[in-house]
């Protein structure tokens, strides 16, 4: 991409504080998120990662569905689109195919991406269009006050799972890999610097990249499930509940049990959709 400037090191480690304001829209704060919500931490990692890529703001589109997480684009100074519940991916698909030079980043919740948008999710992975899909996974429907989602763990409480959820969950990463995504990774709001690096790698990957980002909804998931505080949730779910892939390799199986892996879980090479479409056009035009 011609507009790309020299990338700096990731994660961000310089002395001077990072200037978030140059990527934020003026006068759009305060945001709607509750105190203790993880969405803001993920937002910061996203901005630092974008900065590291050196891609210009004009060349990035950020598209979201509906939900707390999906309010992200409204605060950010890019080409931004806040769509319908579950429909961020098809909208992003249209933007990318119409304007392939744009870097398209999709911000979506676990309900948005995997329930109402589940079909779009698997087909986006299958096409391998150059989209970066960030699933903010807080195990619950935040915006609508705490109903269960496809990632609510079994036996956990939600307003529509009063006696504990009996439904098995989706593992976003396994689903994405099986559906054909060529970059699949997991990060957490707790490991914000590591997340920055993962988001950076996802953006730089050519093809569909999926990030399962664990973050917390203390207001609903936390209260219903008797977590004492937002920080306790982060520690229990994001810190103690996960292992980085490099750590995990060195541990015996019994120490890995019940833990989710962080880091890049899958990476492969397949033709990117828009490039394939370019070739298709040449063929149609007899070139």
């Amino acid at each position: 991409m011609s507009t790309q400037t020299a990338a700096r090191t990731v994660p961000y480690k310089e002395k001077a504080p990072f200037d978030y304001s140059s990527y934020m829209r003026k006068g759009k704060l305060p945001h709607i998120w509750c105190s203790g919500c993880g969405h803001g931490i993920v937002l910061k990692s996203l901005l630092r990662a974008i900065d590291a890529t050196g891609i210009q703001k004009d060349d990035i589109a950020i598209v979201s569905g509906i939900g707390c997480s999906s309010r992200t684009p409204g605060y950010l100074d890019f080409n931004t689109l806040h769509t319908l519940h579950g429909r961020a991916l098809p909208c992003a698909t249209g933007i990318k195919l119409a304007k392939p030079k744009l870097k398209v980043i999709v911000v979506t919740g676990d309900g948005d991406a995997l329930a109402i948008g589940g079909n779009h999710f698997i087909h986006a992975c299958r096409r391998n269009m150059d989209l970066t899909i960030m699933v903010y996974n807080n195990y619950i429907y935040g915006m609508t006050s705490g109903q269960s989602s496809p990632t609510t763990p079994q036996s956990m409480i939600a307003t529509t799972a009063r006696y504990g959820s009996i439904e098995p969950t989706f593992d976003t990463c396994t689903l994405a890999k099986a559906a054909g995504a060529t970059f699949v990774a997991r990060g957490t709001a707790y490991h914000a610097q590591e997340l920055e690096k993962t988001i950076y790698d996802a953006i730089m990957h050519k093809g569909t990249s999926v990030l399962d980002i664990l973050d917390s909804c203390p207001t609903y998931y936390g209260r219903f499930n008797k977590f004492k505080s937002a920080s306790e949730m982060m520690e229990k779910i994001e810190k103690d509940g996960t292992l980085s892939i490099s750590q995990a390799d060195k541990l015996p199986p019994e120490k890995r049990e019940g833990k989710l892996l962080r880091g890049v879980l899958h990476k492969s090479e397949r033709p990117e959709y828009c490039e394939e479409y370019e070739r298709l056009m040449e063929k149609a035009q007899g070139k």
Partner: protein
Amino acid sequence: MKKSKQKKFIQGNEACVEGALYAGCRFYAGYPITPSTEIMEVMAARLPKIGGSFIQMEDEIASMCAVVGASLGGLKSMTATSGPGFSLKQEAIGYACMTEVPCVIVNVMRSGPSTGYPTGPSQSDVMQAKWGTHGDHPAVVLTPSSVQELLYETIRAFNLAETYRTPVIILYDEVIGHMREAVTLPLPGEINVVERKKPNCPPSEYKPYDVQDGNVAPLAAYGEGYRFHVTGLYHAADGFPTSNTKLIQETNERLVNKIDRNKETICKNEEFCLDDAEIGVFAYGVCAKSAKFAVKELRSKGVKVGLLRPLTIWPFPDDAVEEMAKKVKTIIVPEMNLGQVVHEVERASKGKCDVRGLFRVDTDPIHPKQIMNAILGRPVEPTVIPSEVLIERDMIDG
């Protein structure tokens, strides 16, 4: 030397594609469904040849969303569908209304509800085309009734979409979609093609919903230096969500008024033998074909009957209907549904004449004979249909 016009013997769905490409459509997203599929198949062949984008999406709402995305990317965009697919698109059609993203949606009507009779024509989505998505919203819906007219009306649909920054629906039925007629392709430059009004202010000053003196704001494309926000929430002129009740009221009214206040330019009717008519027929789409035949037949026998045929069904041609109602004793409204537009005709005629519906939903078009009988005040059923036509046809799921 003057370039001679090209003639083609094509079906309605192909004519729709010809019109769309002439109008500058460069993006198509869709999901196959009878009887609209040919539009998609021809687009798949044609668009890549001229540098346009084509994509088969996973369902109809995805197609509609991709169209909105592509239009924001700066391309004239369209999708086509039928019956169940039209229902699936509705939420995203409302999104296009709210975000004021120009696009064209074709609905080749088939028999319903549900899967119904996929290969049979129908006119039962007229109300859905107006009210299908939730909330008060603008609706511009065109109802061509021949293959040539479909080509022209598709160009007009794109022009209206770009002029008013709104989705425009082209509504026709299986008969028009699959019927073949000799069609003249317009030469380049022969028909006016409207291009989207783009901002000419510096990006820092751009507000995507600042209508200034008119009802429609210029629309920048993503990736061209104007970094703006689009949301389906009520928003202020700058595009960002608002809970300001005054703004909500104003915005909703503006969305509807930008169409209603321009009714005179958007509405288009054909009037046939209406001047001295004592009986009027109000018919659109395929029924208008039968109706015109019936009117011609009866005129040749001295019956004073005329036809009002809307090419724009929404906004509804209230004034034209009222004018007709003043002249005639009765208006007959033949429709391939169980009575939809007839109620609008009743409303618009303001009690000035009698209004009678003629409805048929057995998936055969209304026969001119039925319309003639209705005009003459005779029983419209049974229609004289040769018995060999009445064989059970095999059904596909379409």
